[in-house]
């Protein structure tokens, strides 16, 4: 349970980090909070030749909450984002989801952007980014590109990040008026990755009729699975909408796999139950906002 040897780099600026990463190419790995990378190194599941530690780049430890949403810099820790009142006001789903990520002590080190790049289909934050239609900003020397959530997650533990790139920030869109969100999940033990989970977003019009209803599912496929259920409940007033039918649509459109933690059937059953809970709660929040 010790990491394999590697060359350790501790750049003092983003520019220097980008140069080292370019040179290292596919033999380089960024070290952010280390809460996923170091377990993988300890278990020898990954063998980078170069580890580029970005913990000294305090200019990336930013969290900005504005009308457009929450912009989280690459060195902002889960705990920092979870505690921020401006973040909770602009996009309350972040605090809710972060409360479900691991334990408080892990959240003191793990970063939000690191969790997105790590792209675990059982993780909460990728589902949140996918549900809200956020994006990740990737940098290489002299250029940056923004990648939308629906194309950022490409497979289990795989993202659109190319060798040599550094993810510098992620944008989580703000919660609009008459909108609500919720997150429900089931884990075997407190702080574990969920065996099933659902995040929901519901948007109402001025007559409190459903205009948008979406669910992002955790542990339901190789990437966060977003199911738009507006077709089932759109146009109805939120109290009268068929949330059970909407949850059944989620159930129909997903095919979670079984593993040692839960069978495929059990996961699918949970997903239906959790999607209904999340949708109803999100609708209630939207209706009362």
């Amino acid at each position, binding site marked *: *349970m*010790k990491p394999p040897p*590697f060359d*350790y780099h501790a750049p003092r600026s983003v520019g220097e980090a980008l140069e080292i990463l370019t040179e290292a190419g596919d033999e380089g790995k960024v070290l952010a909070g280390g809460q996923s990378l170091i*377990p993988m*190194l300890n278990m020898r599941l990954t063998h980078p030749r170069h580890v580029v530690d970005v913990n000294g780049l305090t200019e990336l430890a930013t969290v900005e909450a504005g009308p457009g949403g929450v912009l989280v810099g690459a060195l902002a820790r889960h*705990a920092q984002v979870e505690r921020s009142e401006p973040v909770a006001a602009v996009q309350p789903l972040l605090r809710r989801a972060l409360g479900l990520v691991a334990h*408080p002590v892990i959240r003191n*080190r793990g970063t939000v952007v690191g969790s997105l790049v790590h792209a675990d289909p059982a993780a909460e934050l990728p589902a949140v980014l996918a549900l809200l239609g956020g994006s990740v900003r990737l940098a290489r020397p002299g250029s940056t590109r923004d990648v939308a959530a629906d194309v950022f997650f490409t497979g289990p533990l795989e993202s659109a990040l190319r060798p040599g790139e550094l993810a510098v920030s992620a944008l989580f869109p703000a919660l609009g008026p008459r909108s609500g969100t919720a997150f429900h999940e089931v884990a075997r033990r407190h702080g574990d990755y969920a065996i099933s989970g659902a995040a929901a977003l519901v948007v109402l019009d001025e007559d409190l009729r459903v205009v948008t209803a979406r669910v992002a599912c955790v542990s339901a496929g190789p990437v966060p699975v977003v199911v738009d259920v507006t077709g089932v409940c759109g146009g109805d007033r939120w109290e009268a909408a068929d949330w059970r039918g909407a949850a059944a649509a989620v159930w129909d459109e997903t095919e979670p796999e079984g593993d040692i933690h839960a069978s495929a059937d059990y996961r699918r059953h949970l997903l239906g139950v959790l999607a209904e809970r999340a949708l109803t709660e999100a609708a209630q929040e939207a209706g009362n906002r």
Partner: protein
Amino acid sequence: MRDIAITLTVNGIVRRATVPGRRLLSDCLRHDLGLTGTHVGCEHGVCGCCTVLLDGQPVRSCLMFAATADGHEVTTVEGLAEPDGTLSPVQRAFAECHGLQCGFCTPGFLCTVTALLRDNPAPGEEEVVEGISGNLCRCTGYQNIVRAVHRAAEILAEER
């Protein structure tokens, strides 16, 4: 694979070490600095017994490289008592409430709870359980640990 010279302030004392990049902070504390109070159980972040305070915040020392801690302050279980050996309020509460049996998990609990009560001096039952949820104990069954946390809060309030 050059070794790296690092300087840490551990329990208030400036310590230097020369370590390979892959040296975990837990191993640096135990082997390079001889502070074996920090225990190592799982080395993948699950058990919590390697928890130390980094600039005051509880973190897993098995999920951090010593090189990343360069220039930072670390408090280990050895640094919780007074210099004259008087146990800290949290340590006294654990002793008083039988919050330990074999003691393997105890350093991690003590560091976690020290920070928990600093940030939240009068936690409710749920906050206590949530706060220690990342620390595993295979002996006590947790009841006495939970009691010890409440007792420590009392002692801290009395002594303030």
